[in-house]
């Protein structure tokens, strides 16, 4: 594992018995002694702690001091309504390219006098370069060296509220500065599991303190990237580089919900982002293919790369982009791209698994009822 970066929690993971592996240039815990299945189920039943410190945290600060200038600049890079995002709120965003493909997906938060972005670890350097080029002169782009801990699951609120009672007042996608047991944190009520929970940004040197405080709660187990992947898969959340990339548009990926009316045709600030013609055209006319959730029949998982067919004889019509076993479903689950005509829920398809055609159904969604605290 030489040459791999380490998060502030690396030594803690080792002491907890993590099995580690390389991920986006970091030595990250894949699983802890409980194992992927138990970790996954524990998050759905109680609360799990994830080290996501490898992700990029970036402050975008308007040089003018007027946040609207930063919002306008970010809207030139993303098809999202940035200007309409209120202070203390966060949205899901996408950096797009001129062809309408997805460069990265991210969270962006209005922090009053600046925006805070959380981007994928593997895209961190490219995103910073994109922001510096795209926002030159208008905004200062400041990568943060901070730890990031996700606390996810139905008991996450109770666990965190024992240390910082005010977090119980936050709703899904709220962001605020919170002092947690003397640690100056920035907390968002969000995550990547389909459960209620929080992502907590803390100074690097206090990350271990916070993780140890949270892990001291009997409801909290440490969770590795293995269960993080199965949790997000069941919840239907995309993994950049697998389910979305520069060859997939937001509409093909069924992510047009993230493109608010202000940026669509007829909206107050329609277009004006990379790939606008392609993306806005697809919102109106539909895309030729769609990302769907898939439920293979039987117990054999269909993983990334499995080809999908409409019938026994024909050519492949689509492909699985992520797949595995869904511990909460007790069955295999996948996502992939199929022609729009075959994207309706309960459409029967075939997947070629080890040379054999196996039935697979386009799944009604959501497969797991989200635990988000919206009200």
């Amino acid at each position, binding site marked *: 594992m030489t040459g791999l970066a380490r998060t502030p929690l690396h030594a803690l993971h080792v002491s907890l018995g993590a099995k580690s592996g390389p991920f986006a240039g970091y030595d990250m815990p894949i699983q802890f002694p409980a194992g992927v*299945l*138990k970790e996954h189920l524990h998050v759905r039943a109680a609360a799990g702690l994830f080290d996501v410190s490898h992700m990029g945290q970036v402050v975008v600060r308007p040089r003018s001091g007027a946040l609207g200038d930063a919002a306008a600049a970010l809207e030139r890079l993303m098809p999202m309504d940035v200007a309409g995002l209120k202070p203390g709120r966060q949205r899901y965003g996408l950096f797009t390219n001129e062809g309408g493909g997805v460069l990265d997906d991210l969270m962006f938060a209005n922090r009053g006098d600046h925006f805070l972005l959380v981007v994928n670890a593997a895209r961190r350097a490219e995103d910073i370069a994109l922001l510096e080029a795209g926002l030159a002169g208008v905004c200062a782009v400041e990568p943060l060296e901070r730890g990031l801990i996700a606390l996810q699951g139905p008991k996450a609120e109770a666990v965190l509220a024992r240390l910082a009672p005010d977090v119980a007042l936050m709703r899904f996608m709220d962001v605020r500065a919170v002092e947690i047991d003397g640690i100056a944190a920035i907390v968002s009520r969000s995550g990547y599991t389909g459960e209620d929970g929080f992502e907590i940004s803390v100074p690097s040197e206090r990350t271990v303190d916070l993780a140890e405080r949270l892990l001291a709660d009997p409801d909290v187990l440490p969770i590795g990237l*293995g269960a993080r992947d199965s949790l997000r898969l069941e919840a239907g959340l995309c993994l950049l580089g697998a389910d979305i990339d520069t060859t997939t548009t937001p509409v093909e990926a069924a992510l047009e919900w993230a493109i608010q009316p202000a940026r669509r045709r007829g909206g107050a600030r329609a277009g004006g982002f990379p790939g606008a013609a392609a993306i806005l055209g697809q919102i109106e006319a539909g895309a030729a293919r769609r990302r769907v959730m898939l439920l293979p029949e039987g*117990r054999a*998982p269909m993983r990334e790369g499995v080809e999908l067919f409409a019938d026994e004889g024909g050519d492949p019509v689509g492909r699985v982009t992520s797949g595995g076993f869904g511990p909460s479903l007790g069955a295999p689950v996948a996502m992939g791209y199929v022609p729009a005509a075959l994207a309706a829920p309960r459409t029967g398809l075939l997947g070629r698994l080890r040379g054999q055609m196996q039935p697979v159904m386009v799944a009604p969604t959501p497969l797991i009822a989200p635990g988000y605290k919206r009200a």
Partner: protein
Amino acid sequence: MLRFTEEHEWLKLDGEEVIVGITEHAAEQLGDLVFVELPAEGKMVVKGEEIVTIESVKAASDIAAPLDGQITEVNPAIVETPALVNEDPMENGWFFKMTLADPSELDDLMDEEAYRAYIA
């Protein structure tokens, strides 16, 4: 008598048959099993032939026939509950039973001491 292959299978002599499974070491390395596909009973198999497909939470892998012979029985419990392999790999998590074309070939496999050294 217990014997081991370099592919982390164990073979236990049981009368005319051998019982075959994967070792605790292998089960731990694989992670939680979620799918097991076993060969048909009666199937004639050749050493090295991939006859079992398993999937863990991480990946798919194949398990090969440890020696030449015929499958006499498979363990339906691990198809129903793949986690049994992780929980009890050396007993209830067995995969299949087979008769050997040449039982003396068992002597070419590792004994427990040799296997422990092999995985150390």
